[in-house]
């Protein structure tokens, strides 16, 4: 008999109905914007990452699908000479939990926006943000907060200063904790310590609306990051006039989650009182070139399992259907 709570929760009538309804509504929203569904196999035979659920199929080590973006990228790179521009997905991924309360089986709906080499990706970023802005309404969330960040705000100064991978990882970990004192401590004795600490202070200025972008003018890397700041400013100008009434848009300059993957703008959707983000995404232009394809890509994933948990624990955050 197992003595620990399994991480494969069964969905009873209410959550099962809610999952079906949300999946249909989200896939409908994506289809209405030109996104076509791809369904990569649940069983992966590619290189198996550490966090995946693995087992032997005869003599062969296989893994359950652990991330749609990675599974789709492999499929697209192998099967499509030219990239489809809009792809959607829905289903479960299986990942070993980092925290003891996380489930292994997680339900997701998401999309990928792919642009061939040479084409501008600015419009694609705004398109994804607009889609994400529509999601609280589709899910019946009474209110939500959209955080907009940009991975390049941290990545480019670290690269410019030539920080080694270990030291860079420590700085990123300190930023992830929003701990400027840790950044200073980590960089003690490094020639770029003063500059990078000042940059960390600018990044960690209080989360706020679009005015937060102004904090970067105090950074020693303001000139280096001019293009990224301009990109964020243009996106904000495009999004603010169409902001739904129950959605707040915040600029989060210190968003470093997934920094080894994201290369540009990032988006995270929260509900007030939620302990975890409900959807997340961004630009990851290094993924396809790493697979031998000169394509740029961005996308987001709606974490339906977290939404199902939230609907159970905080039903007051949702409109009644």
């Amino acid at each position, binding site marked *: 008999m197992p003595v620990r709570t399994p991480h494969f929760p069964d969905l009873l009538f209410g959550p099962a109905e809610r999952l079906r309804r949300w999946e249909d509504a989200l896939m409908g929203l994506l289809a209405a914007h030109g996104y076509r569904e791809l369904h990569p196999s649940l069983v992966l035979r590619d290189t198996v990452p550490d966090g995946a659920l693995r087992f032997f199929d005869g003599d062969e080590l296989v893994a359950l699908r652990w991330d749609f973006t990675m599974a789709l990228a492999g499929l697209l790179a192998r099967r499509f000479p030219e990239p489809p521009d809009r792809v959607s997905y829905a289903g479960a991924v299986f990942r070993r939990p*980092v*925290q003891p*309360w996380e489930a292994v089986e997680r339900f997701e709906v998401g999309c990928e926006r792919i642009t061939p080499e040479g084409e501008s990706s600015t419009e694609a970023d705004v398109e994804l943000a607009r889609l994400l802005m529509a999601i609280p309404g589709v899910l019946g969330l009474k209110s939500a*907060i959209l*955080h907009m960040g940009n991975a390049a705000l941290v990545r480019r100064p670290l690269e410019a200063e030539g920080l080694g991978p270990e030291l860079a990882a420590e700085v990123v970990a300190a930023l992830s*904790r*929003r*701990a400027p*004192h*840790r950044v200073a401590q980590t960089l003690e004795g490094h020639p770029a310590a003063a500059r990078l600490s000042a940059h960390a202070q600018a990044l960690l200025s*209080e*989360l706020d609306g679009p005015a937060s972008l102004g904090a970067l003018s105090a950074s020693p890397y303001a000139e280096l990051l001019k293009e990224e700041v301009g990109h964020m400013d243009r996106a904000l100008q495009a999004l603010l006039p169409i902001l739904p009434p129950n959605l707040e848009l915040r600029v*989060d300059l210190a968003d470093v989650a997934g920094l080894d993957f994201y290369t540009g703008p990032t988006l995270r959707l*929260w*509900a*007030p*009182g*939620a*302990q*975890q*983000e409900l959807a997340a995404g961004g630009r990851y232009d290094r993924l396809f070139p790493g697979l031998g394809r000169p394509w740029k890509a961005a996308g987001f994933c709606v974490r339906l399992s977290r939404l199902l948990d939230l609907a159970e624990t*905080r*039903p*007051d955050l949702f409109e009644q259907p």
Partner: protein
Amino acid sequence: MNAPAILIAFPKGRLGDELVPLLAGTPLALDAQALKSRVLRIPTATPGVSALLLKGADLPRYVAAGVASLGIVGSDTLDELDMDLLELADLGFGACRLSLCALAGVSLDELRAKPHLRLATKFPRATEAWLTREGLTAELVPLSSSAELAPLLGLADAIVDLVQTGGTLKAHGLVETAVLGRSSARLVAARGAYLSEPGRIRPLAETLLAALKG
């Protein structure tokens, strides 16, 4: 359904003893009557905000899981557990050193030269990191309290433990042979609460900062 009450996790023990007087007279002062009882959830002077009194080693888990929105804990504990939470400020108080301590007369070089070094500690992560930096190997003897006894009774060659005044070490005939790191109280926050409810959480964090950072 209204938004749930906000819980702030405060440490019991050494840090807690320093903390309670600093909060007196602030909006987060702990209810004196409740403090005298054995109750571990204490009302504060702000309605809807309660304090949880927790052991330092358990505290980060309550915050990382979002049960408590804010907390105060020593950086030594944070470094050992490496939980996913925000560390908003170094509060400065509760300062101490994480040190390698051995019987008086035993030098660091003598410890280094041991073919099989045994170190007793409740800080295995920090100890392993130091051993890696120093290019040493050792057998770690995990202890949760009274580590000072280990070298006296032959359980270990030395200990890695927190040292504040050095009084306990002296009482057991031990001396510091190396400082591995420094620790102080940190203001921590649940990532979810801080990012999704800034209007509720940030003013409380600022109140704590104003009271505790002086």
